[in-house]
């Protein structure tokens, strides 16, 4: 018998009607566990769509507090949330959106010494890298390769965004494409460079789509591809990228065999307000 209540049948009816989802697929989503690292421009829409979709366990990782300048794009937070912890603000939005979702919050920066524990905490099925800095992106990639967890990478800046999906054993990881950290201060962060507010909505929603497809086991993921989007020209490009057998972390003879905390660019280090 289906374990779905009448209320759930109604809430998720537009999913259940889909041939690729059905009641069984909706049950998979309700049993699904996704960790969203970063509750900013990317993590806001990603977490909200996952919650609306009925992904039953959502983890939110963020050390920061809501700032007024976040609200132009970080739609999980409200004006009344300014000054509150982002994970608490995110939890409140998700719980109001869908009481079926269990939210787990981690009020911390991901680091080499905590990320595997966070992933193991609920044995998450899929991770979403919704962070805004390279040290976190390399750390998440390396941790997912080592823990054999699939994840969606994304990065956004100005009018551009990119995303790719890593699935263990099925294609390249982030380091196959970007082997090393860019030199410190070579790349501006969105604090310095600006970001069109809708960009996180487009790319973060694509990340949530990948998580949902992965849980359902349907369609083709962005494994082996980097998808780029330019909002000014409205061009999407899907660039084929091979796995690098010499990749420092997922290659045949990896040189990165333990997690490392790379140095944060100075402007990213902010004290909690």
């Amino acid at each position, binding site marked *: 018998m289906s374990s779905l209540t009448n209320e759930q049948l109604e809430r998720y009816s537009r999913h*259940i009607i889909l041939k690729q989802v059905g009641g069984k697929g909706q049950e998979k989503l309700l049993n699904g566990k996704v960790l969203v690292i970063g509750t900013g421009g990317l993590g806001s829409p990603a977490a909200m769509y996952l919650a609306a979709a009925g992904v039953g366990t959502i983890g939110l990782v963020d050390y920061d507090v809501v700032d007024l300048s976040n609200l132009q794009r970080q739609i999980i937070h409200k004006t009344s949330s300014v000054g509150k912890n982002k994970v608490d603000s995110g939890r409140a939005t998700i719980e109001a959106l869908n009481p079926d979702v269990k939210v787990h919050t981690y009020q911390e920066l991901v680091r080499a010494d905590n990320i595997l524990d966070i992933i193991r905490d609920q044995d998450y099925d899929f991770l979403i890298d919704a962070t805004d800095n390279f040290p976190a992106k390399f750390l998440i990639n390396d941790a997912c390769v080592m823990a054999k967890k699939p994840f969606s990478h994304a990065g956004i800046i100005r009018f551009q965004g990119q995303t790719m999906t890593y699935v263990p054993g099925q294609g390249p990881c982030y380091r196959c494409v970007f082997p090393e950290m860019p030199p410190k201060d070579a790349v501006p962060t969105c604090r310095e460079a600006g970001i069109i507010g809708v960009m996180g909505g487009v790319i973060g929603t694509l990340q949530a789509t990948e998580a949902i497809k992965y849980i359902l086991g349907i369609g083709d993921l962005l494994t082996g591809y980097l998808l780029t989007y330019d909002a000014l020209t409205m061009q999407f490009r899907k660039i084929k990228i091979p796995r690098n057998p010499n990749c420092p972390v997922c290659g045949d003879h990896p040189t990165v065999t333990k997690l490392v905390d790379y140095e944060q660019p100075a402007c990213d280090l902010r004290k909690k307000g």
Partner: protein
Amino acid sequence: MADGMKTDANVDITDVVCPMTFVKVKVALEDLNDGQVLGVHLNDGEPIQNVPRSLKDEGHKVLSVRKAADDTYDLIVQKNGLAQ
């Protein structure tokens, strides 16, 4: 049930409207094996117009449709019957 055919399960969708009509039938079918048959009790109008069509779209075979005296209908549906 309808036409004296033995059904493996039955679902009454006279108390719901679109899209819950098809949702309830679909979830009931998921609990059956291919080839098993489901009895569906449904209303005239939108349900009888849409539910059989949606079932066919998903590969299920409507074996019979019978109208009852109170203007409701009874369908007999074979799970994935069009694929066999």
